[in-house]
């Protein structure tokens, strides 16, 4: 147990070649650096097209950066292959955004949990049901016997997301990359999942890279924020500080986009005129895709 490996992303860029068009490439990340200290929860915030999911895939070693490097402790993530990659998978796991797509519709909960237990922890078959049950209890799905034989479509969205989290915990990771883990869930379920993630992070000393466009969830789930716009970090700092004193206009727009219901005064302030102008045409962040395709 090397308690204390940090994730360090150093000047990472990633370009995708647009399909069909030779030579034209889309710059998803244009030189991003960030750190996640051991036990820390860092929020990576941005609208769609900001490159946040691309960065997640690079950190997970599911893709390789075009430039720059990623360190997890002493490990050079982008160079991992074979056995070393498998060892890395043990340490860094992923919580998917869409709990409906992240589970194979034809496999039971027991199967989904058994795969990482067998592959990454090397547990023998006879221990798998017991370990899978323990994982389910850990994420608040009890009694486990009731859930293990179920297929994804027999579960609610919140239950599926708990299964996805349980699967991510199976290998006893040190770092969890959570990609919009509550955005597909009903608002009434979000607090439960966020509370679970926060509990895991504090009680088991997990580091977390929490990716979201929703600053409210980032507020309760993280202690530091990194704001990403079109593949570049535009603002960074302690979560409360960034939210209360945003420096970059993009951060301010993200804050404005959060529906605020706490007091009557805010309600009018938010839907006020400044964004309603015909300027909707440009909307800054709206057209990353269209811009690329039209260029």
């Amino acid at each position, binding site marked *: 147990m090397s308690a204390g490996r940090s994730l360090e992303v150093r000047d990472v860029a990633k370009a995708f070649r647009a399909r069909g068009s030779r030579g034209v490439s889309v710059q998803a990340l244009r030189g991003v650096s960030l750190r996640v200290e051991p036990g820390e929860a860092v929020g990576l915030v941005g609208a769609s097209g900001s490159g946040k999911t691309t960065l997640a895939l690079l950190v997970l070693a599911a893709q390789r950066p075009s430039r720059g490097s990623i360190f997890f402790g002493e490990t050079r993530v982008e160079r991992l292959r074979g056995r070393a990659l498998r060892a890395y998978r043990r340490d860094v796991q992923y919580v998917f955004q869409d709990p409906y797509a992240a589970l194979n519709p034809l496999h039971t909960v027991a199967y989904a949990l058994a795969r990482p237990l*067998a592959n990454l922890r090397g547990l023998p078959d006879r221990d798998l049901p017991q370990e899978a049950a323990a994982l389910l209890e850990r994420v608040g799905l009890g009694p486990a016997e009731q859930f293990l034989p179920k297929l994804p479509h027999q579960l609610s969205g919140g239950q599926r997301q708990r299964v996805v989290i349980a699967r991510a915990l199976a290998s006893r990771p040190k770092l969890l990359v959570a990609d919009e883990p509550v955005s597909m869930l009903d608002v009434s379920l979000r607090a439960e999942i966020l509370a679970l993630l926060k509990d895991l992070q504090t009680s088991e000393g997990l580091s977390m890279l929490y990716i979201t466009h929703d600053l409210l969830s980032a507020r309760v789930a993280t202690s530091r924020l990194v704001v990403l716009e079109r593949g570049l970090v535009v603002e960074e700092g302690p979560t409360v500080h960034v939210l209360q004193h945003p420096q970059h206009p993009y951060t301010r727009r993200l804050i404005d986009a959060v529906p605020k219901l706490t007091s009557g005064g805010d309600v009018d302030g938010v839907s006020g005129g400044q964004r309603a102008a015909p300027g909707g045409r440009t909307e800054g962040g709206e057209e990353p895709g269209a811009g690329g395709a039209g260029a």
Partner: protein
Amino acid sequence: MRGAGTRPGGLGPGLAGQAGPPRGPRPPGGLLVLARAIRSLWGDGRARLGMLTILAFVLVAALAPVLAPYSPTNASFADSLGPSARHLLGTTGTGQDVLSQVLYGSRISLLVAMCAGTFATLIAVTVGLLAGYLRGVVEEVLGFATNVMLVIPGLPLMIVLATYVPGRGISVIILVIVLTGWAWGARVLRSQTASLRSRDFVLAAQLSGDRTWRIVFHEILPNMTSLVAASFFAAATAGVLAEAGLEFLGLGNPSTVSWGTMLYWAQNTSALLTGQWIQVFAPGLCIGLLAASLALVNFGVDSLSNPRLRER
């Protein structure tokens, strides 16, 4: 890490639909999977009709020695007899009992349907999965081969192949049908694989440490069951028709008894001119019925990979 023996949670992929007990290993068992598939198909009226017709043909083929009044090759009767109590469908121009030939002929057609369907589907699945999942040279080469097979017109190719492949027999016919019949299925399976490959649960399996072969066969393939079944039935249907066509053209072994050779001999002995229309009509109807029933079963395959419809 471990081989195929790993069956975590005791629930193999084939059994995923079966909410069995969470503990205790239970191997999937091919028969069980087949039974569930049939039960699933049974739910569709058209598929049920198709399966009943196929079952009838299978029974006829199995019981041909019991059902047939004479040996199909017994040529000791008078030529070109009309229907009578002794020969319900009459006799051929070479003095064989037509009914016995029709009954025995079902064996060849079913054999070709099953073999052509199975082997063409095996090739289609292999090529489709590899071309859809892998990137780079493999994808390009397999995709090219598939497209070439798709654009070459089937019947002329079959005729050329059947003429040049040494030997004359049913195995040659099957070989020819398989070689010309896999491409359609491969094309469909390739695009479906490519689409499933980008799904989150495939990335999840990668992150869970699953190896490529396991992802392909345990995550992707089960989600394509209905397409695999569809390509089997389509290939089987095409096989039945192609076999009859090739035999009719005399590219098979004319001494075997099949519906296709019956048509070949009926043509050679000018059966229609002598009023022996039953010799053409009976095997023709059987070919049509078998092909239609295979196609009917194809209507029901959609439910095969839908977990919701699998349940009961």
